[in-house]
């Protein structure tokens, strides 16, 4: 094996080489660390620590040598910076947590470490995972002196998407074979779509939230981002599983080997196509790309079934009430008392709170805290929060009705390809662009983005697949089948 090509390998191939001792974990780590340094202009990494990474890699090499190789022994990965880590700082891309170091690892981090993964570093994201472009990142990436959004490797003038923008950019640029992301309203699927990679958000409750810095607790889910469905399946099999001692919302549902159903035939598979996902706001280039992917499925023997998700439009206001409501409470702990940023000078307790939070949080975080505080306030609760909860349940019911007619649902991830940096200035316009990812989030359903081709400016377009609860295996199977018939997921940005 020519080590200079390691970064073109997928998780499955690289893991096989590592276990077969054809490449050492240290060699792999050094290779990807070098790539991360070489491409630091992408702004994908917020923290790199070679000593820590190489120590982890050496430990994996020892385990491999001793015949105790874990399934992904020596595989380099990197984590979105909302997963707390003992060995690297964790900031959630916020000034509020600059330099913060957690005394424990997130469950997802622990599980991947136990599977043999070696951590390359921490990846940029929108501050506290609030945003869809990575432009709300408030911490300087490795190689920069000031906060910068991560860039889209397909065109550095464009955003990578968000909030898991650093993860998507790093995977697309082959700086890591795979990364973790989190998805609250589309934060795995949308950047995966924008960067031409594969990402999956499992059923709410299948991945432990312990150690994930909470944005909106009832929506947050962790998931893998990699180049192929097969790679995602390998990682998701390690990530999912009950965590009853640490996360009460973790479901009592056994883990699963998602690779086992990858090759299943999809002949006769009924793919629901919701009319509401092809409304006027959908750009022509994205529509054409998604439709061609759907035709590809027909060629593979699947059947397209027109369906309706009548409350799709309502998912935007519902989400932008519920998520900020939970966020306003979840972010109260950042008060300057115990850890994180505290204002340098203040006159009394209230002044300390005000200055600390005014300095520590960025605009979008403040906006959501204010919206959330408002909708939970006495006199407004019933009209906003309660009403939104009722509609949320209806949206979930709509999906169950749809799944009577189909096995999975397909449509676009986002109405457009990745916008240019700085192009989106109005928050409401940006919120509206979440319309296709929010319904599955609100229903707690698994969803993924699969590379489907390229749109305007040669930028990638993802196809969204949504499954019923616990149907991750079927989603990955359908995605894998598409990837065997197409090569969109194998294409690399220029210069990579």
């Amino acid at each position, binding site marked *: 094996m020519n080590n200079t090509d390691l970064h073109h390998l997928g998780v499955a191939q690289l893991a096989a080489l590592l276990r077969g001792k054809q490449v050492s974990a240290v060699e792999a780590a050094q290779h990807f660390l070098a790539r991360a340094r070489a491409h630091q202009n992408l702004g994908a990494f917020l923290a790199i620590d070679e000593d820590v990474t190489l120590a982890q890699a050496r430990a994996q090499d020892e385990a491999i040598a001793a015949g105790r190789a874990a399934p992904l022994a020596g595989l380099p990965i990197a984590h979105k910076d909302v*997963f*707390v880590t003992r060995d690297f700082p*964790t900031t*959630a891309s916020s000034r509020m*947590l600059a330099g*913060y170091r*957690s*005394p*424990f690892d*997130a469950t997802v981090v622990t599980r991947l470490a136990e599977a043999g993964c070696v951590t390359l570093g921490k990846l940029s994201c929108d501050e506290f995972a609030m945003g869809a472009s990575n432009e709300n990142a408030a911490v300087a990436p490795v190689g920069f002196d000031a906060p910068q959004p991560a860039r889209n490797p397909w065109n550095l003038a464009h955003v990578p998407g968000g909030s898991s923008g650093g993860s998507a950019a790093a995977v697309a640029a082959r700086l890591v074979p795979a990364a973790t992301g989190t998805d609250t309203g589309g934060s795995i699927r949308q950047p995966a779509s924008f960067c031409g990679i594969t990402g999956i958000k499992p059923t709410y409750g299948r991945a432990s*939230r*312990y*150690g*994930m*810095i*909470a944005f*909106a*607790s*009832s929506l947050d889910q962790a998931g893998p981002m990699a180049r192929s469905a097969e790679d995602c399946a390998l990682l998701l099999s390690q990530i999912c599983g009950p965590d*009853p*001692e*640490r*996360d*009460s*919302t973790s479901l009592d549902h056994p883990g699963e080997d998602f690779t086992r159903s990858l090759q299943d035939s999809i002949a006769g598979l009924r793919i629901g196509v919701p009319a509401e996902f092809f409304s006027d706001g959908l750009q022509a280039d994205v529509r054409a790309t998604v439709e061609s992917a759907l035709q590809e499925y027909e060629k593979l023997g699947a059947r397209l079934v027109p369906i309706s998700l009548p409350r799709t439009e309502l998912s935007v206001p519902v989400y932008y009430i519920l998520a900020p*409501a*939970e966020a*306003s*409470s979840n*972010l*109260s*702990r950042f*008060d300057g*008392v*115990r*850890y994180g940023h505290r204002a340098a000078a203040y006159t009394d*307790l209230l002044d300390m*709170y005000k200055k600390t939070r005014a300095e520590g949080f960025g605009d979008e975080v403040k906006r959501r805290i204010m919206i959330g*505080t408002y909708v*939970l*306030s*006495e006199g407004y*609760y019933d009209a906003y*929060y309660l009403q939104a909860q009722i509609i949320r349940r209806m949206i979930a019911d709509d999906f169950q009705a749809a799944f009577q007619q189909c096995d999975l649902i397909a449509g676009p991830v986002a109405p457009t390809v990745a916008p240019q940096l700085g192009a989106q200035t109005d928050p409401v316009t940006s919120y509206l662009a979440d319309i296709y990812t929010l319904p599955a989030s609100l229903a707690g359903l698994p969803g993924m983005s699969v590379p489907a081709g390229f749109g305007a400016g040669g930028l990638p377009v993802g196809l969204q697949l949504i499954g019923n609860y616990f149907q991750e295996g079927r989603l990955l199977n359908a995605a894998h089948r598409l990837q065997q018939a197409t090569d969109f997921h194998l294409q690399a940005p220029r210069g990579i």
Partner: protein
Amino acid sequence: MTAKLIHGYEVVIGFETHAQLATQSKIFSRASTAFGAEPNTQASAVDLALPGTLPVMNREAVACAIKLGLALGSHIAPESIFARKNYFYPDLPKGYQISQFEIPVVQGGEVSFYLGEEKKTVRLVRAHLEEDAGKSLHEEFHGMSGIDLNRAGTPLLEIVTEPDMRSTDEAVAYAKALHQIVTWIGICDGNMQEGSFRCDANVSVRKPGGPLGTRREIKNLNSFKNMQQAIDYEIRWQIEQLEDGHKIQQATVLFNPDTGETRAMRTKEDAADYRYFPDPDLPPLCIAPEWVERVRAAMPELPRAMAARFVAQYALPEYDATTLTQSQAMAAYFEDAAKGCGAPKLASNWVMGEISRRLNAEEIGMEAVKVGSGQLAQLIARIQDGTISNNAAKQVFDALWTGEGQDVDAVITAKGLKQMNDTGALEAIIDEVIAANPANVEQYRAGKDKAFNALVGQVMKASKGKANPQQVNELLKAKLA
């Protein structure tokens, strides 16, 4: 009965009590709940609200709620909801307290107790599970405040009554009755000084038949004595205000035990909007009927049921039965002693009398009692079979209490307290006393009872107290007839 009026006003009192639950670990983390550790040594990552931490319910705390519900005849909600109460304070690490708001775990129920001879019943609105905050320490930090989060996350049951109490005495009696129940069923250690049982009283006054007056909530009533003083003071203060033509403003007041006064801390105008909403980190708390039945099967006999049984089984007066069931330890002690000696009323007298007196005098509890129930039973048996007199029994008891002796019979022998049951010897003494006191004999025969008592006294003296007084009476009467 109509409520007692004070200057023409009726008093209306409701209670909110925070009972700290006697669990090993905290309500949502595994940190210990032990009192008095070095600051911040018993605060885990969850208690410190470090980023990424999540709450996990302690089943032991739920079992405590079920026990209370069973003890008070409440409805135990098969599904209750945890909610976040949002406010900023340095000793509240998450910026919200996890509590229950719309659907609490324990709903309804009542507490019954005797106020003198009268049976009172106070209805409960609810009892809900919640976590305690930490402590802010304002002294010894030179213009700064210290935060101790050891207490943060300690499980509490907040027990809320209807405004059913109509006097300070009734309110204090309610608090004592509730205190007795929570300690009896073992869900709370009841230590008021350490804050394990914290009462807040909502007090208002009104003209009889009128609408409820505006209430003020008295916080921090950390002893029954303070409670009595504070509520009395508050009632007087409110009536004075109204009589002077002022209105009562809804407020939270603190009782100052040093001045005996209450002082407003905050008024309704500064009341925070807590923005309660269901905690998305915790699914609904589901309690299956089987769980309730498991807890019920392990519940001790409750004080009211036990008192009723004492009346029926041991023919005790209601007063004795109620007094003996003040604590499980005292009731158990009584029952052991009563069974051991076969004389329940005597056992009751001794427990309520001599034993209680000694425990009080030495400020110790029943767990440190120095005369065992077996020893007491034996002592009572020796009175019953005529071996010793009541007076002698007290001497024996003293010897047992002070540790001078262990075995009742050995103490009686060692101290020579055995009563004289030999009729021959006693008759000889009586003959001598009659011969030596002709004047008393004459007066007795003339109908003066006092003279007879004097003769009995002489006989007792001559026998060095060992004669059985009843036997002396009988023999003396026979000889003088």
